């Protein structure tokens, strides 16, 4: 497989985060985050649990509110204006650790729901798009089943397809493989790699370091709510600068 890490990244800016701060009550979860993501970048965010990495990407599509600083996605400033929030959410796809498929709807209905109600796509067209993406994640034959009948890996692939049906320009992944049995992780990662090869802008919170090496063009290490270190994967893994990064890497790669 071609090493996606070598793929070109455009100069066009997709996400700009400036001096962003967030508190849960008095607890300072995100401190002075500055991050610029260009179109076509594949960024892996890692760090110990509680370091704020999930909160960071949840702030990008306004699932969490930030209290200071600015987030700009595709030229739209994330403010308290609902129209901006809706615009950003329909541009940004998100996959969750626990898939969060809608258990009362069939796979096909899961995929067509948002295009029909948010994008106002006609039903037939939405179903065609949905089938296209189901084929892409290699489970078109499951279209009429319900989420509870699928394996974890299949569910996560459906969740990815569900986000793709909204034709997002940016994808966020919040630990997409941590709730999966080991034998299912690969099928989900393969789907994500394929997505990266097509030039999707991606931010992944994950502990899959093999994926980071192969796909990412930048790895970000977070600890205690701050970005501690970011670098190209080769440099990041082979020659970490910060002591905290070294400790973290030795812990997760050490066995």
């Amino acid at each position: 497989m071609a090493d996606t890490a070598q793929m070109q990244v455009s100069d066009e800016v997709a996400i700009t985060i400036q001096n962003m701060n967030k508190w849960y009550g008095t607890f300072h979860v995100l401190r002075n985050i500055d991050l610029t993501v260009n179109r076509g970048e594949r960024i892996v965010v890692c760090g110990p649990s509680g370091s704020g990495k999930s909160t960071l990407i949840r702030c990008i599509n306004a699932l969490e509110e930030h209290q200071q600083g600015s987030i700009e996605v595709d030229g739209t400033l994330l403010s308290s204006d609902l129209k901006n929030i809706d615009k950003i959410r329909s541009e940004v796809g998100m996959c969750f650790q626990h898939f969060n498929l809608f258990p009362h709807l069939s796979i096909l209905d899961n995929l067509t729901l948002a295009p029909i109600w948010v994008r106002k796509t006609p039903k037939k067209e939405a179903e065609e798009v949905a089938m296209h993406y189901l084929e892409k994640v290699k489970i078109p034959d499951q279209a009429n089943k319900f989420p509870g009948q699928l394996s974890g890996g299949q569910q996560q692939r459906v969740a990815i397809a569900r986000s793709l049906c909204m034709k997002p320009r940016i994808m966020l992944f919040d630990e997409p493989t941590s709730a999966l049995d080991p034998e299912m992780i690969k099928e989900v990662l393969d789907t994500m790699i394929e997505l990266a090869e097509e030039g999707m802008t991606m931010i992944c919170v994950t502990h899959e370091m093999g994926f980071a090496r192969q796909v990412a063009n930048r790895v970000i290490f977070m600890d205690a709510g701050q970005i501690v270190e970011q670098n190209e994967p080769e440099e990041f893994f082979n020659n970490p600068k910060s002591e905290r990064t070294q400790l973290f890497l030795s812990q997760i790669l050490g066995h």
Partner: protein
Amino acid sequence: MTILTDPPKESFRLSMLLNDTRYRSLTFQVIAAIALAFSILYLANNLARNLADQGLSISFAFLGAPAGYDINQRLIEYTSQSTNLRAAFVGILNTLLVAFLACVTATIFGVLAGVLRLSKNWLVAKIMAFYVEIFRNIPVLIWIIIIFTIMTAVLPGPRAFRGDDATASMFLGVSAFTNRGIYIPGPYFTRGFGAAELGAVWDWVLVLGLLVASFFGARAVNARATRIQEATGIRPATLTTNLAIWFGPLIVVALALGLTFEIPELKGFNFKGGIKVGGPLIAIWFALSIYTGAFIAENVRAGILAVSKGQTEAAAALGIRPGRIMSLVILPQALRVIIPPLISNYLNITKNSSLAILVGYADVTATLGGITLNQTGRAIECVLLLMLFYLVISLLISGIINIYNNSVKLKER
């Protein structure tokens, strides 16, 4: 690195009231508050116009006026010359009395039926399932009427107990079940502090004090047993000591003060002496008990079943005896599931006791919401006061549930 703080301040536009998360919820709340205020104003205005049309006004002065009716069942002094307020209090006390009695018996019925429904005895389990389904699925109102009918139409009148050709006889020679109520022996003390008659308060205060003392005594014995167990590993037997602590002092006091029973006797057209429990009270008490008992039985069963079989097996695998498994492992967990619905069943009993009006038991609904309302015509005032009373009781009970739930939650951490 660029230092850019908050986004530039936008000027306020009207559309932001709907589209901006900062104002949106405020907008909706203001609309809701205005709608609420308008509805209240509208209703108040209608009320004022209706009252003016009929020449009425809202006033609670009637509470101070003489009630002008008698109440048979009463716990405090009351005559027809007493005020409506006092009549209401008589009713409140009667409500609390029947609610308390029904809570106690419903719990007994419910726990018995719930445990027996899980019995390994097939026949007993089926009978209890039958009891639960029958009583849960028939309106409590019908049960109240049925039991009241038994009390008034089936039981013999006092007259039937008279003469040589009596068709009815007293139960064990000491109690009479008549259509006017049930007469049971009343205990009193011949050498007590007060007069040798029923209702001498101080003797009973003494007995109550004794029971409280026994309770603490028994607790001390158990605590000592636990201490010994912790120190030596062997738990001393406490059963006989506990029995002695509970019953010894009581027997001594009963003998010393000369406990005697006043047996009801047929005098003239009616029974005299002993304690009379009125037919309406029994009807509402018993009906609420068996009806709510069926619901409690289901809660108890669910509570016991909720403790997984794995817990019993784990305890058994540790070599704990079956009796101890129940008290150390199953019950503490089951109670957590059982107690909140149990308390809300108590709340239901209190609310359902308002059906007492149907059989002429003078609870607060019957006095304040029934006779007082009809005699004074103060419908709004009476119904509001009535609701207020039940509301206070409900809030108290749900407060207790919340406190219990919170205390259980803390223990889980």
